[in-house]
């Protein structure tokens, strides 16, 4: 099984057990770098796939929570190199497939070939790069494919249908359906026409679809779960960690457990 197929398999397993897949997001090393692996293990024990945010100085697709977590993590010296070293130290102890969410520049600076090798060794199965549209992605995609790593494509409510189809076909692991026309951490709630949109994405995609942005509560996960295979929970989880609360009860509550 290629690395990106592990992501798909983990989401499919949740579907087969009759519940939405849960994809928790954390900013690596936030709030405290020392707690990174402990936190990662805790959320990987509940989540089906874990999205690991790589801090960046200019998170232009993110709202206040992720901006804050990203800035703080950088202040405390978190880097991609440090994150890989930490993941190496926990090798074999985390079952859930990891997907790294990073803006492009830290990946460019690291070097694509080295990135693909380090990622595979550290148990990373795929990447989400929010400022890398498909048209600019050939080099990174090629480097990742050598090691069977996937580049997850995002689609949004603003995406025209033809482009939606192209993106669904190009995606690996799952298709990330952004629920709102906006940035992460929105408090406005999910849009009324969400069901139609998610149904359309699911129809065009042979991969499972996970919805993200603005998902904070059990009702959100349930609403999304009726039309998509899974839900990504980011800013709300980061806020739980920020308060120093245990993430596991929160994540379980999202699934009604």
């Amino acid at each position, binding site marked *: 099984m290629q690395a990106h197929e592990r992501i798909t398999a983990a989401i499919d397993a949740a579907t087969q057990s009759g519940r939405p897949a849960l994809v928790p997001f954390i900013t690596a090393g936030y709030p405290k770098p020392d707690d990174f692996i402990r936190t990662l293990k805790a959320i990987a024990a509940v989540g089906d796939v874990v999205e690991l945010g790589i801090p960046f100085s200019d998170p*232009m697709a*993110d709202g206040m929570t992720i901006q804050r977590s990203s800035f703080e993590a950088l202040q405390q010296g978190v880097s991609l*190199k440090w994150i890989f070293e930490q993941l190496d130290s926990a090798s074999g102890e985390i079952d859930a497939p990891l997907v790294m969410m990073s803006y492009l520049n830290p990946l460019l*600076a690291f070097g694509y070939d080295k990135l693909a090798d380090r990622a595979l060794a550290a148990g990373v199965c795929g990447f989400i790069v929010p400022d890398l*549209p498909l048209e*600019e992605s050939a080099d990174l995609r090629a480097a990742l494919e050598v090691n069977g790593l996937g580049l997850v494509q995002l689609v949004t409510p603003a995406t025209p249908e033809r482009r939606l189809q192209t993106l669904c076909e190009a995606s690996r692991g799952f298709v990330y359906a952004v629920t709102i026309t*906006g940035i992460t951490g929105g408090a406005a709630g999910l849009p009324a026409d969400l069901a139609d949109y998610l149904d359309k994405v699911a129809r065009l995609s042979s991969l499972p679809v996970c919805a993200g942005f603005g998902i904070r509560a059990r009702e959100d996960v349930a609403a999304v779960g009726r039309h998509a295979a899974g839900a990504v929970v980011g800013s709300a989880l980061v806020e739980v960690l920020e308060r120093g609360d245990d993430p596991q009860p929160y994540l379980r509550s999202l699934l009604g457990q």
Partner: protein
Amino acid sequence: MSALLQAGEASALLDAAIRGELPDERGRFGPFGGRYVPETLVPAFERLEDGVREHLHDAAFQAEFQKELREWVGRPTALTYAPRLSESWGADVWLKREDLAHTGAHKINNAIGQAILAKRLGARRVIAETGAGQHGVASAAACARVGLPCSVYMGAVDMERQSPNVDRMRRLGAEVVAVESGDKTLRAAIDEALRTWVTDPEGIYYLLGSAVGAHPYPYLVRELQLVIGQEARQQMIDLAGGLPDVAFACVGGGSNAIGLFYPLLGDDIELIGVEAGGTGSGLGQNAATLATGTPGVLQGSYTIILQDDDGQVQETHSISAGLDYSGVGPEHALLQATGRVHYISASDDEALEALEELCASEGILTALETSHAFAAAKKYAGEHPGRRILIGNSGRGDKDMPTLTRYPARTRSHAGA
């Protein structure tokens, strides 16, 4: 830097630039440029690109744009001979007076052009970022002129050091949004404007103020600013008796510099871009992006940026808010890589001295940004006596009074001499 291009590639790319073939259909200036934006904005950028293709060189658009440049902006701006500077420097010094354009800087050329475009594309409202406040003021004025609501994103640090411009924007009817995130200067303002655009990509027109960002902005801004170089070139022939030996322009994002340089690329004229040298050569002490930066992706474009080994974009320092930026337009990255334009820097102190000298000797209070170009030109004149020098006087310095009042005027006695 030339290592970024293969041996034969540099001259082929420079020829293509001179022939007007860049950016290519992918928005690339050689290796630089492109479009690195969130998926939500991809359709908006495609619509903008289509709109630019349809309208920018359309006769009706150009007629309206040229009429506004003539009757509202006040173009052509003057070319001014600087006799006392010329005598003092041992050179023949000419100034292209963008400070005389409406609202006090070259920014208005781009702002009115894009505001007309926004109207034609059916935008409901306009957003803009600003550093020194000149683009914010220009956008506020241009939006008032075409009848569109305007919100300007401005870093909190910049709002303080350019407070007269904040008040001007508000009086021109714009909403000024203080940006408290990131470095609280121009880069954070662009990030915040992009975040806002993402919330309504169909209704909002983003009026970007420099030749930076994702395609088609570097191209669009250049096309709207190249009137500076076209006019200056003809005025040098008519008034100065010939083309200059060398032309200087300050470079932050690089819109005034590309506007001045682009029409001169094919001429035998040395072109020198001047970045902010700040207080020193260390990372974070300056905004000398091309002089000390490395290739990377920032705010939509592959270009030269100031970053650390991990690819984190670094904060910058300059006394001038308009040059205080960690990136630079991708076309400048190419022009440096091909060797056609040389990019150097001037320090905060050198810029302040140049500002005072220009005030005292020619009666022109130039912007702190522009002062960097004067500082570099003076140094050049000392090393190359007798040259004919053209300086892009990109803006006026009234907005800098809050900063300048912190520095006692050192040349008062010189002015009386």
